[in-house]
């Protein structure tokens, strides 16, 4: 019997039950890991497996749950030794009566962005397990008990790329219907089916009675067969046990046939008796066939967004025509991009477009870094925007969830290079209605290209619902007849091909006055023609108002709840709000900028700086007003008259003023004039960055250009940045005794590589003596002291 036959045969497939508790019952000591049972206690293991086979198990999970190099490190055994021994014992016990699965459990460390383990390292750890499993003759692989969808992705990818084994993937959820890391069954189903899992499911987690809502969610978002392997009820609060009997377990499991579950087993606390009872209860039961129709949707690891109404794609993370974004990309300033992401989602964007294409930067590397950083701060799904296959490949790999690829077009070279990536990573794709001959004039020709793209996608197995067509907006000032053509094309793609439509709307008004008016009207016209996914600036109130009005008028926003929520309190502004937080109104008080900074009045500082810029040179404002004001605040902090929170309020006000000045400087020749630069990093292995961020803002306030490399930074990256930017000063932060070693290593590497820079260090556990011992030039006890060091080094 092969796995595919089991899958195709009608009726339930039986899995096994708990392993850890069974081993402990045999005599495994607490604290003795179960990983080595196949080597240390093969007889126990064989007996347990055999008991499950006797109970009716058709697929045994080999005892390889913890057989990855991270978990085995302390045992001194290799992955290959443990995997081959475990599979051998399971196969002997199966004796041809059951299949044997390579069981792949979590690594035990959190992946980026929740943790520090890089995604590719996780893939490599799983690759080693998969290769050992293939070598040892596993019939299939099971990825189970995952709480991080990204880790499940890593394991599934490793199995797909290094074997032809069927793969079942199962996550473990809490009662609130999410994993510890916040992933729901919706995101899990969309992502894992896209990535090529054969079976998805739920294990461990809860008891069988808690399964129905989770199973219903999985079947709502996926057409794959479902696996369920719950615990023997909920944990008994009094101690280590679980709260339901084998009979109760069996009865509850048998009811899951009504929901269409295909694979049945048990996890913690279940024994061969539970499985035998369950086998009996399932005998002769048919699995109810439930027709499934999965809606078009995209997702992040923690949020699914069905395209069942207008969904706004925020366009702001894109350097085209944006000076500050270009500067941020050149400097690798993630915070700027993260700020843009948060502002757009707060304004109502459902999905964020990400484009980092800029001459002179490594786009694939930058795209990967930006995608990871964005997924750390927002749960909005992303639209990965590049025409380069290598950039899209890197971004799709790093992205947790189901993304949108923007874009392919009718040209053969984009179709053949990009569509296979869309298929491999299970994304949705935007098809532009243009080809090597440009944008067709006629609607019919655009439809023809849309058809060509759709056919190619379908041939590769990309579902119809995941193909979105962009009929392309032409600038009305250049091609006035174009707008009507575009609108008609949207309507026909929707009606004749039944596809979702995307459209960037802001370009329509280029070169005309009163652009917001044109944009808003064009958007409304397009929505009535069936536009699903407008790409726009959500910070523009008029655009979001058009979308919200459309939802209200089309009876999608029931009882106008969302509309009233958005506008019930305030007047609608039809202008575009400033992207920065600085209000455009004149300062309400007559305070000077210096007084405003000292008082920490962030809301007034930007406007005051803007007023001053009309009469005063930008550098003079920095040197003559901001810095003296900050000095006075700093002196108060040093003398204990004011405290850190007030220092930060002043820094925040100075920052708001500085942003206005920086915009002006970025507009003049050259980039922002800054002293330095100063390289800042929290060292490898350390993730505490609030102290470093405070230092950064203070340095920027004092007019220094700061290159912030972020947290958990490899020594080599610090060296590279310091050398490339010819930085006179490098600032390193570490908050843990265990990461001071990485700080020392970073300084040593800077010295060994002969980088001509001074090094200042700080962080809670550092002392002046230790700073000296590890070769730092300066120790700074706080952010203010770091500024003093910078003033000494950089003149």
């Amino acid at each position, binding site marked *: 019997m092969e796995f595919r036959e089991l899958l195709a045969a009608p009726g339930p497939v039986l899995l096994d039950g708990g392993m850890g508790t069974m081993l402990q019952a045999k005599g495994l*000591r*607490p*604290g*003795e*890991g179960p990983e080595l049972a196949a080597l240390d206690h093969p007889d126990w293991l064989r007996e347990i497996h055999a008991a499950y086979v006797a109970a009716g198990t058709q697929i045994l999970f080999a005892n390889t749950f913890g057989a990855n190099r991270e978990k085995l490190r302390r045992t001194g055994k290799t992955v290959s030794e443990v995997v081959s021994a475990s599979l051998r014992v399971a196969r002997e016990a199966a004796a041809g009566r059951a299949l044997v699965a390579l069981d792949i459990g*979590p690594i*035990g*460390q*959190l992946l980026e*962005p*929740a*943790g*520090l*383990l890089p995604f590719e390292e996780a893939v490599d750890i799983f690759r080693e397990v998969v290769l050992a499993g293939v070598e040892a003759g596993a019939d299939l692989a099971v990825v189970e*008990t995952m*709480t991080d969808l990204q880790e499940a992705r890593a394991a599934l990818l490793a199995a797909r790329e290094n074997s032809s084994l069927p793969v079942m993937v199962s996550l*473990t959820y809490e009662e609130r219907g999410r*994993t*510890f*890391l*916040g992933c729901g069954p919706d995101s899990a189903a969309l992502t894992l089916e896209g990535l090529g899992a054969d079976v998805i499911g739920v294990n*461990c987690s809860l008891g069988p009675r808690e399964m129905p809502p989770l199973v219903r969610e999985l079947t709502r978002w996926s057409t794959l067969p479902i696996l369920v392997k719950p615990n023997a009820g909920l944990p008994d609060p009094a101690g280590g046990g679980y709260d339901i009997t084998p009979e109760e377990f069996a009865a509850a499991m048998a009811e899951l046939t009504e929901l269409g579950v295909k694979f049945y087993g048990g996890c913690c606390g279940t024994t061969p008796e539970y499985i035998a009872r369950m086998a009996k209860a399932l005998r002769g039961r048919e699995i109810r066939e439930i027709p499934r129709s999965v809606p078009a949707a995209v997702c992040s690891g923690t949020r699914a967004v069905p395209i069942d109404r207008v969904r706004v794609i925020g366009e702001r993370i894109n350097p085209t025509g944006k000076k500050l974004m270009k500067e941020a990309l050149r400097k690798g300033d993630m*915070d700027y991009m*993260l*700020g843009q992401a*948060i502002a757009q989602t707060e304004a109502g964007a459902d999905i964020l477009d990400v484009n980092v294409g800029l001459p002179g930067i490594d786009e694939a590397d930058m795209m990967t870094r930006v995608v990871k950083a964005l997924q*750390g*701060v*927002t749960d909005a799904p992303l639209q990965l925007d590049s025409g380069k296959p290598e950039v899209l490949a890197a971004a799709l790999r790093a992205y947790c969830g189901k993304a949108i690829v923007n874009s392919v077009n009718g040209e053969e070279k984009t179709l053949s290079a990009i569509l296979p990536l869309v298929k491999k990573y299970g994304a949705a794709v935007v098809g532009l209605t243009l080809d090597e001959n440009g944008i067709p004039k006629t609607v019919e020709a655009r439809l023809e290209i849309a058809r060509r793209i759709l056919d190619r996608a379908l041939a590769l197995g990309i579902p119809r619902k995941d193909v979105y067509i962009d009929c392309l907006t032409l600038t009305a000032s250049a091609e006035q007849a174009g707008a009507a053509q575009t609108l008609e094309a949207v309507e026909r793609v929707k009606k004749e091909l039944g596809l979702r439509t995307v459209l960037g709307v802001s370009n329509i008004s280029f070169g005309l006055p009163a652009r917001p008016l044109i944009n808003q009207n064009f958007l409304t016209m397009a929505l009535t023609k069936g536009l699903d996914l407008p790409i726009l600036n959500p910070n523009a109130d008029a655009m979001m108002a058009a979308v919200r009005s459309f939802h209200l008028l089309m009876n999608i926003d029931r009882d106008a709840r969302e509309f009233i929520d958005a506008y019930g309190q305030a007047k609608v502004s039809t202008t575009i709000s400033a992207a920065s937080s600085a209000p455009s109104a004149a300062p309400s008080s007559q305070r000077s900028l210096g007084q405003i900074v000292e008082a920490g009045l*962030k809301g007034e500082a930007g406007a005051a700086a803007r007023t001053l810029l009309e009469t005063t040179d930008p550098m003079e404002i920095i040197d003559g007003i901001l810095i003296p004001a900050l000095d006075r605040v700093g002196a108060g902090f040093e003398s*204990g008259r004011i*405290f*850190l*929170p*007030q220092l*930060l*309020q002043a*820094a*925040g006000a100075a920052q708001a003023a500085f942003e206005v000045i920086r915009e002006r400087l970025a507009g003049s020749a050259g980039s922002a004039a800054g002293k330095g630069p100063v390289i800042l990093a929290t060292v490898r*292995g*350390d*993730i505490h*960055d*609030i102290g470093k*961020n*405070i230092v950064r*803002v203070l340095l920027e306030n004092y007019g220094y250009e700061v290159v912030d490399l972020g947290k958990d930074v490899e020594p080599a990256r610090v060296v590279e940045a310091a050398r490339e930017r010819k930085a006179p000063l490098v600032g390193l932060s570490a*908050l*843990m*005794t*265990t*990461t001071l070693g*990485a700080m020392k290593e970073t300084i040593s590497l800077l010295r060994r590589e002969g980088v001509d820079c001074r090094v200042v260090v700080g*962080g*809670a*556990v*550092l*002392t002046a003596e230790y700073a000296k011992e590890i070769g730092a030039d300066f120790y700074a*006890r*706080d952010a203010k002291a770091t500024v003093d060091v910078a003033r000494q080094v950089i003149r």
Partner: protein
Amino acid sequence: MNLLKTIPIGEILRYMGCPPDRADPVSQAAAERAAQRILAAAVPRWTWMETSLSPEEDGIRLSSGLLLPGQDLKRHLAGCGSAVLFCATLGAGVDALLRRAASGDLLEALALDCAASAAVEEVCDAIEVALRERWPAKYFPFRYSPGYGDLPLSLQGELLRLLDAPRRVGLTASSSHILLPRKSVTAILGLSDTPVAASSRSCATCPGRDGCLYRKSGGHCGIS
């Protein structure tokens, strides 16, 4: 059992580097706002186990065979035949909130970070109350964590493994021994049949002693 009902604003301000009685209104408001947001984002979870204790020359050995090395803890647990090992976490949602805040306003970011630190202490206090109720006849020295005294942080991973913490509560340690989710604690609470000296956490055992701004200026944070 509700482990986290409120977060004391005074503690948040203290962690922010501001004596509560001298807080300006803006900082006070930031601390209050941060407390509300952390309360909304936190999903506190914990797990525990009881262990015997056997003192040895180099430290103290648990029933699982794990040696907790160092002299401070051994001294601290003198007279305790057993102990409770526990861990607690505010969950990944708080980390996500802190990451989001890190790219925005500094005062808000600091207040949130400090509110989360105060919250995890609250959770541990609530756990300790529950554990004390469970052993009404016992006496308890204060709870002790890796990083205090000479107990190394490198124990975190082993302690979590023993507690089955990754599976039970989603708590892990990085290869650099940082607990993830960040706002989490592992601790050992001794159980003694005889009264223990009324010792409390002091600067000597405080994990923040080296970087403490209060100590640097010759003062004290006020936590006794």
